[in-house]
């Protein structure tokens, strides 16, 4: 019965009732999640007449807890639904569970969850990527047809790449952030993980659009995202981001070149593009993201909700102990880095400078998009790494986001599509970026690539 979930959603729907599909999802979770640990919470009473979905546990839901993978919210249930959740509910979706993540979405491996790591379904000794590792693993292991994740610097695309599934980061403002627990407000965006491009396009159509609860949501009309899926890439112009790929080696390089050939085969025009400031992207990202995070996480103070330390006798104790006990090491590291970057006397040198370079980067992307419809890089510089391989080396962990963070800094949409496998059988991934609100074109090109390669049909053992 659970083979139903191997099918693209529109085929599965034709073969079974909504109830049967939700049951298939719940049974798959029951049998497979023990080894993968993609879920922090499973909703055995999931109902609805639409798609069974898994939700990253930093998107608030009224019928399940929202922990953000943190001890500080281990008993927290939100009094309101995220706008994306409300729109999916209205569309009949069934929420089968909440998925694991790096604490407050801070990480690239899902090892920084307070509730234990998620394992990569392709190789259980490896990470699924992060921070939306639970969502990517749940889709890869065919436990759900689709999942919501969240993006700040690649947190949907990088795990999608590591798990061999499709991951979309929409344009900043395309999906309301209301109900997405903030990490870095100027970068955060809800993202979508699916097996195939079509599922992704259809889901975006449901949750995208202006929201009175989020001033940064865009009033740009919602597109018919699946309209051009069959249109191919003939005559479309793809720029290869030279600064990003010039130092690539080995199988990631070979796989990327192969992907370019697939696009060429469809009549795409492929040329070099230059985005020199992209080499600063990681530095800018970790200043801006952590600065914003240092303020966004101040509300977890033990006063109104979440963990409150029993040891507190004074107000200062209450803050120190509640936050000290509630937050994990990576979150504390980022709060400290961000606090420093905003401090009097350092603001101009760090936060101010980072925002200035961010503006330069935005300008260079705009220039590149004057010549190209899409920009291309691999999604990640390497396939999934071993659990524990980078936990002691934050900087090398941070470099996992090197190709994905620029899209968040600039606010453009980007999609990760499976592009093959390494010699060890680990998924590899191609990233396509488009100008602001270019999602429809992005799906068109990604769907062409998917049709030509059909990597989505392979699944983990």
């Amino acid at each position, binding site marked *: 019965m659970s083979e139903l979930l191997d099918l693209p959603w529109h085929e599965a729907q034709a073969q079974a009732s909504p109830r049967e599909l939700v049951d298939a999802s719940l049974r798959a979770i029951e049998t497979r999640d023990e080894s993968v640990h993609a879920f922090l919470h499973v909703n055995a009473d999931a109902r609805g007449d639409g798609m069974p979905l898994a939700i990253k546990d930093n998107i608030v839901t009224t019928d399940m807890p*929202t922990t953000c993978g943190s001890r500080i919210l281990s008993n927290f249930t*939100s009094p309101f639904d995220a706008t994306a959740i409300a729109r999916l509910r209205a569309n009949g979706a069934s929420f089968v569970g909440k998925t694991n993540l790096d604490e407050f979405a801070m990480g690239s491996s899902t090892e920084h969850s307070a509730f234990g790591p998620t394992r990569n379904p392709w190789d259980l000794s490896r990470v699924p990527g992060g921070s939306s590792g639970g969502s990517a693993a749940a889709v890869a292991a065919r436990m759900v047809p689709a999942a919501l994740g969240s993006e700040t610097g690649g947190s949907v695309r990088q795990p999608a790449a590591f798990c061999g599934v499709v991951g979309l980061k929409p344009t900043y403002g395309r999906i309301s952030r209301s109900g*997405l627990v903030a990490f870095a*407000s100027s970068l955060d965006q809800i993202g979508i993980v699916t097996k195939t491009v079509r599922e992704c396009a259809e889901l975006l159509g449901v949750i995208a659009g202006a929201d009175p609860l*989020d*001033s940064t949501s865009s009033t740009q009309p919602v597109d018919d995202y699946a309209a051009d899926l069959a249109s191919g890439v003939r005559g479309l112009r793809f720029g290869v981001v030279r600064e990003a790929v010039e130092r690539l080696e080995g199988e990631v390089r070979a796989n990327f070149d192969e992907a370019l050939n697939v696009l060429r085969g469809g009549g795409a025009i492929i040329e070099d593009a230059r985005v020199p400031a992209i080499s600063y992207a990681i530095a800018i990202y970790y200043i801006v993201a952590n600065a914003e995070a240092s303020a966004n996480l*101040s509300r977890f103070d033990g006063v109104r909700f979440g963990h409150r330390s029993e040891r507190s006798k004074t107000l200062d104790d209450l803050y120190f102990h509640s936050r000290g006990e509630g937050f994990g090491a990576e979150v504390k590291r980022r709060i400290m880095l961000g*606090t420093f970057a905003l401090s009097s006397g350092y603001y101009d040198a760090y936060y101010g400078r980072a925002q200035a370079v961010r503006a330069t980067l935005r300008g260079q992307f705009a220039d590149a998009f004057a010549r190209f419809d899409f920009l291309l890089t691999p999604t990640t510089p390497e396939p999934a790494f071993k659990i524990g391989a980078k936990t002691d080396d934050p900087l090398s962990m941070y470099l996992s986001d090197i190709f994905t963070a620029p899209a968040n800094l600039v606010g453009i949409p980007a999609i990760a599509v499976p592009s093959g496998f390494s010699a060890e059988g680990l998924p590899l991934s191609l990233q396509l970026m488009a100008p602001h609100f270019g999602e429809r074109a992005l799906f068109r090109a990604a769907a062409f690539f998917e049709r030509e390669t059909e990597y989505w049909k392979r699944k983990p053992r």
Partner: protein
Amino acid sequence: MPGKWEAVIGLEVHARLLTSTKIFCGCSPAFGAPPNTHVCPICLGYPGSLPVLNRKAVELAVRMGLATDCEVHPRSVFARKNYFYPDLPKGYQISQFDRPIATNGRIGDVRIRRIHMEEDAGKLMHHGDGSLVDLNRAGTPLVEIVTEPDLANADDAVAYLTRLRQVLMYTGACDGNMEEGSLRCDANVSVRREGEELGTRTETKNLNSFRYVGRAIEHEIERQIAVLERGGKIDQETRLYDVATGETRVMRSKEEAHDYRYFPDPDLLTLDVEPSQIEEIRRALPELPAPRAARYQRDFGLSVKDAEALVVTKALAEYYEAVAAEAANAKAAANWVRNEVLRVLNEEKVELEEYRVTPSMLARLIKLIDSGAIGGKSAKEIFDDMSQSGEAPETIVERKGLSQISDPSAIREAAERVITANAAQVEQYRGGKQQVFGFLVGQLMKETRGKAKAELANAVLRELLDR
């Protein structure tokens, strides 16, 4: 010989904007509700909630900016001011920092440095060994109005605050209610010898009545002078005024000062106000108290004191102008409004809006006096009656039979009756005893039950007696 001491004072006033919802959510900002009943996920800072700006608050802030002759900026920026306190749900206050909505204005001779918008915090209530948090107030829209250090003493400060409060109320930006915390003041005070460099300043916080502002400033000036004369030095610190002792004490030293780590709030777009909207708001501004008081002196010949007393609130000024216009007697209108209307409102604790005596009723009363139909003493009585009964002055005159007799033939008949009834006194008068005239007038007034118009009564009586 060292110069005389002088004080340099600047004020920061927080004024609550009169909106029907909070600045970033739909909750009511009404004062006095049971604790934590006017709250929602947004003003409680719940995970995933986002602020959405209340445009009415922006309009009121723009009005204040224009009413204080500020430059109102078409683009300003909200920033996060980071600090931890249990009354601050998000761990940061959304405020404006380097790009406030208005700058560079003035009220009278006092320059306004800036006006910025921000959200209020909640309230802590201390109970024995614990504290409780009430977040009803959290997210209430405020403007902070900051002066240049242009004030020299407590009286200046109170005069500035009085005018500022009037302007806030005229524009409808704030209800000016200090008991409910709609206006709160912090005072920056330093002292120096005449002609010397500026001294180190202290900030005294949370002064919630004009009286406390005055006392706190006086105390702080005296304290600083005393410290300096002893050869000590002033520390740049934050102080708190203690109502009980009338003194200020240290709340936070410079070393304990916060680093607020301001940065633009990425949850909010830049605050853009169309220049055309600014102009529209400017056009809709009411005439403000200072120009209005000047006009009353110029056009109505009122004294400074009368004019200022009448412009205290917009409602009173408008009431006065309506009375003056209909009565066609601006000075009489000023006296009646200033002395009688305000007395009754004060005694009976009624608002002008609910007051029974409409401007037209008072104006008609003044006209009855001016036409000689009633006398001054009766007018007072009629006025008090109007205040109680709400009836028209003409009705009351009728009901009480208070109309003066100004018909000479009616008075003559009455006088003849008095002369007949008091033959002995008339004899004395005619014999040269002039004092008896007063007695006879009294008798005549009695005969007319006090309604005879005095001059007329005198003239008629004298004419009959001297015949």
